C-alpha cells in the first residue's frame, strides 16, 4: 500500500535472562499510515515499549535481540543493517526521520548540558548546520512548543524546568528535524491532568503544522487514546490482540480482552455498585500459555484456546482481531456459527460501551 509509512511484520524481540527466555514481543504486525495517530495500548509488560524501541533499534543487546521480523519504513527494511550488525543507516534515521519522546522527561534529558545544546545536537548532526544556526533553530522549536522566553532559556539546565516544561523540551527535540514518524512512549504519564491536556494538544498541533508526520502513541490510558488516536492497537503478552479504528474498538470491541478492559474502566456519570473485572493476573512472560495468551483469564474461552494460538482475523475491513471467536468479515464460517453470534454485530445492537456496563 502506498500510504503505509511504517509496516511492521512478525516482529519478535526476545530477552535472554537468568530466569529464562522472555518473549517480550512475539510476532507483532501493524502499519502506520501517513498523517495518522496510532495508539498502542496495553498493560505494563505487554511489550508496547519494546515494540517502539525495536523500531529504533534501541534494544539493549544483550540481553535483548530482535530475532525475527521486518520493519519497513518508506519501503526500506530497517532491520536489514541490524541483521548484518551495521548501524550506519539507523543512525541517519533516528532523531531525523523517526524520533521518540520518552516517558520520563527527567531521566531522558542529560542533566549536565543546557537544553539548547541538547535540542541543537540532532539539528547539527542531521541537518549539518553550524552551532549558532542550530541554536537559532532550537530556539524556534522551543518557542513553538510554548516555552516562554525560549531564547533566554537555551542555556538553562533541565533541573531549572518543571515536568511539563521538560516534556515540552523533549517534544521540541523530537520535532527538530521534522520527522515523518514521532514515537511517543507514555508522553504524559508522569504529568498532571491539566498539564497532560496541554501536552497532548501541543503534540497534535505540532503534527498538524508539520503536515505529514504520523504519531505512534504508546500509553496504558484508554481515555487518552479515545481522545487522540484515529486507530488503536491493543497489546497483550507481546502480541497485538486487536487493531482497528478507534470508534470500532471502543464501541464494538472484538477481542474479549479489549471488552474486559473497557468494562473495567470506571466511567463518568455511571454509578455502578461493582466494577466488572478481568479475573486473574497477566501470565509471566516465561510461562506463556501454549495457545492464546489471554486464555488463562478469558471468560469466553473455548477448548481450543489453550492449545491453538488464534490467528489475526479481519472481522470488519481494516479491523483485525486475534481470537478464535472472531469471524471473517466477508465469508462466514458455519462451523463456529453455533458458538455465538459474531461479536461486532452483537455489540453494535447495544449502545456503545454503556450497554455492557
Amino acid at each position, binding site marked *: 500500500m502506498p500510504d503505509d509509512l511504517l509496516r511492521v511484520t512478525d516482529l519478535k524481540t526476545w530477552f535472554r535472562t537468568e530466569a529464562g527466555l522472555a518473549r517480550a514481543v512475539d510476532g507483532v504486525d501493524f502499519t502506520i499510515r501517513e498523517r495518522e495517530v496510532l495508539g498502542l495500548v496495553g*498493560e*505494563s509488560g505487554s511489550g508496547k515499549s519494546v515494540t517502539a524501541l525495536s523500531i529504533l533499534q534501541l534494544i539493549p543487546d544483550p540481553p535483548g535481540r530482535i530475532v525475527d521480523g521486518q520493519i519497513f519504513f518508506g519501503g526500506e527494511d530497517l532491520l536489514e543493517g541490524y541483521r548484518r550488525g551495521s548501524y550506519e543507516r539507523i543512525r541517519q534515521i533516528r532523531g531525523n526521520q523517526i524520533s521518540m519522546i520518552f516517558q520520563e522527561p527527567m531521566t531522558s534529558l542529560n542533566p549536565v548540558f543546557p537544553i539548547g545544546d541538547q535540542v541543537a545536537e540532532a539539528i547539527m548532526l542531521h541537518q549539518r548546520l553550524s552551532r549558532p544556526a542550530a541554536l537559532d533553530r532550537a530556539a524556534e522549536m522551543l518557542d513553538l512548543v510554548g516555552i516562554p522566553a525560549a531564547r533566554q532559556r537555551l542555556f538553562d539546565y533541565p533541573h531549572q524546568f*518543571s515536568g*511539563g*516544561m521538560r516534556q515540552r523540551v523533549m517534544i521540541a527535540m523530537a520535532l527538530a528535524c521534522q520527522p515523518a514518524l514521532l514515537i511517543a512512549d507514555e508522553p504524559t504519564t508522569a504529568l*498532571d*491532568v*491539566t*498539564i*497532560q*491536556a*496541554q501536552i*497532548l*494538544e501541543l503534540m497534535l498541533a505540532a503534527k498538524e503544522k508539520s503536515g505529514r508526520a504520523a504519531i505512534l502513541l504508546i500509553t*496504558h*490510558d*484508554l*481515555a*487518552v*487514546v*479515545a*481522545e*487522540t488516536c484515529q486507530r488503536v492497537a491493543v497489546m497483550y503478552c507481546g502480541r497485538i490482540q486487536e487493531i482497528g479504528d*478507534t*470508534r470500532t474498538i*471502543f*464501541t464494538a470491541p472484538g477481542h474479549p480482552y479489549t471488552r*474486559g*478492559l*473497557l468494562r*473495567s*474502566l*470506571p*466511567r*463518568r*456519570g455511571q*454509578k*455502578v*455498585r*461493582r*466494577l*466488572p*473485572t*478481568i479475573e486473574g*493476573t*497477566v501470565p509471566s512472560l516465561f510461562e506463556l500459555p501454549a495457545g492464546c495468551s489471554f486464555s488463562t483469564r478469558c471468560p469466553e474461552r473455548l477448548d481450543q484456546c489453550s492449545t491453538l494460538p488464534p490467528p489475526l482475523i479481519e472481522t470488519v475491513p481494516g479491523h483485525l482481531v486475534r481470537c478464535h471467536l472472531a469471524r471473517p468479515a466477508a465469508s462466514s464460517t458455519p462451523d463456529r456459527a453455533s458458538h455465538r453470534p459474531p461479536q461486532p454485530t452483537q455489540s453494535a445492537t447495544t449502545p*456503545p*460501551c454503556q450497554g455492557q456496563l
Partner: protein
Amino acid sequence: MSQPPPTDSRMPLAAPQPASSPVLADRLPILEVRDLRMYFPVFGGLFQRQVAEVKAVDGVSFTLHEGETLGLVGESGCGKSTTGKCLANLYRPTGGEILFRSRRSGEVQVHALSDEKRAWSVRPFPMRVPVTVDLARLDNAQMRPFRAEIQMIFQDPYASLNPRMTVHDIVREPLTIHQPHLGAAGMDDRVAWLLEKVGLSPEQAQRYPHEFSGGQRQRIGIARALATNPRLVIADEPVSALDVSIQAQVINLLQDLQEEFGLTYLFIAHDLAVVEHISDRIAVMYLGNLVEIAPTAELFDNPRHPYTRALLSAIPQADPTRPRARRQILQGEVPTPLNKPSGCGFRTRCPIVQPDCAQFPPPLLALGNGHSVACPYHARQN
C-alpha cells in the same frame, strides 16, 4: 456503630448539615479537620538557616463522617498526600486541629480537649465513653493508642512492603504492637483470616513481597492496614500504580471491605473517574487549599470553582463517540508552594480572575446541599 455520644467533645454532633443532604444527615462525624496547616522549612545559606517554608497544606478544613468515602483530588504538589499523612499523624501539623472521635474510652491518658479551652488534662475518662482527641497535638507515644484506629494504604506497593519480611510477618506486625493479648496462635489465626479477606491464599503467607504482582502486593498492604481493625483508612493513591485490569479488582475489594467493616475512607487520588466511582463526597485541593467540596454527583454535575471546572474538562474520557466538549485548557503551571501567590492560589491561572483576588484568600462559601466553594466569583461563569 452504636456508640454513645461523646460527652467531652467540641465536635458538633448535630452537625450543621442542611436538611437537604440526605446522604450525610444520619452519619456522625468521625473526624473533623479545622484550618490544618503543614509548613515544611527550607534550609539554606552558609549556616543552613531556615530561609523559606513550603506551605504544603495551608488552611484546610473538612469533616469526615462515619462510613463514608471522601475523595481528595488534586494535582501533584497540591498537598493531598500531606493532608493524609497529617491525619495519620505521620507529620505533626504546623497549625490547626484534627479532632478524632475515637472508640477508645476510659483509662487512656491523653491530652484531650475538655470543656475549657485547650487544657491538657491528664485525667482518665470514664469507661465506655469515646474520647475526642486533637491528633495534631499528640506526640508519637500519645498517638500510639489511636494508631490502631487510623491506618494507611500507600501508593507504591513495591516500596511500602519490607522485602525481607514474609507476607505473614508483614500482616502480623501491627498485631504484635496493638493487640498483644491475642497471643501467638491468635495472631496467626487473625493473619490467615485477613489474608483470606483480601483474596490471598494461606499458602502465599510464607512468601516474600517480590514474589507477588502489583495488585497482590496492594492486597497485602490492605490486609496490613486492616489488621488492627481500624475505623478510618487513609488510602493514598491506592490504585494509581496498578494496571487497568487490576485496578478494578482492588477498587471492588476496597468497597467490599468498607461494607463489611463499616470503614471510613479518605481516598486520595488524581484519577477522577476512580474517585467518582468510589466516593460519596469529593474535595478538590489546589496549592495547599481546599477549593471545592461537594457530594460526588453534585461536583460532577455542577462544578463551581474555576479550577474544578478546568480539571474536569481536562480529563480525557474513554468514549470516542462522545461529542468533544470544548476543552478548557488551563494555561501556565501550578505555582510553587514555596512562593504562593497572595490571596487566591489559583488566580495566576484563573480564567475569571478579578483584581481583588490578590487581596485575601477566599473563604469556603456554603452553597447548600453540602456543596462549598472557595471562590466569591463562581457565579460569574456561565
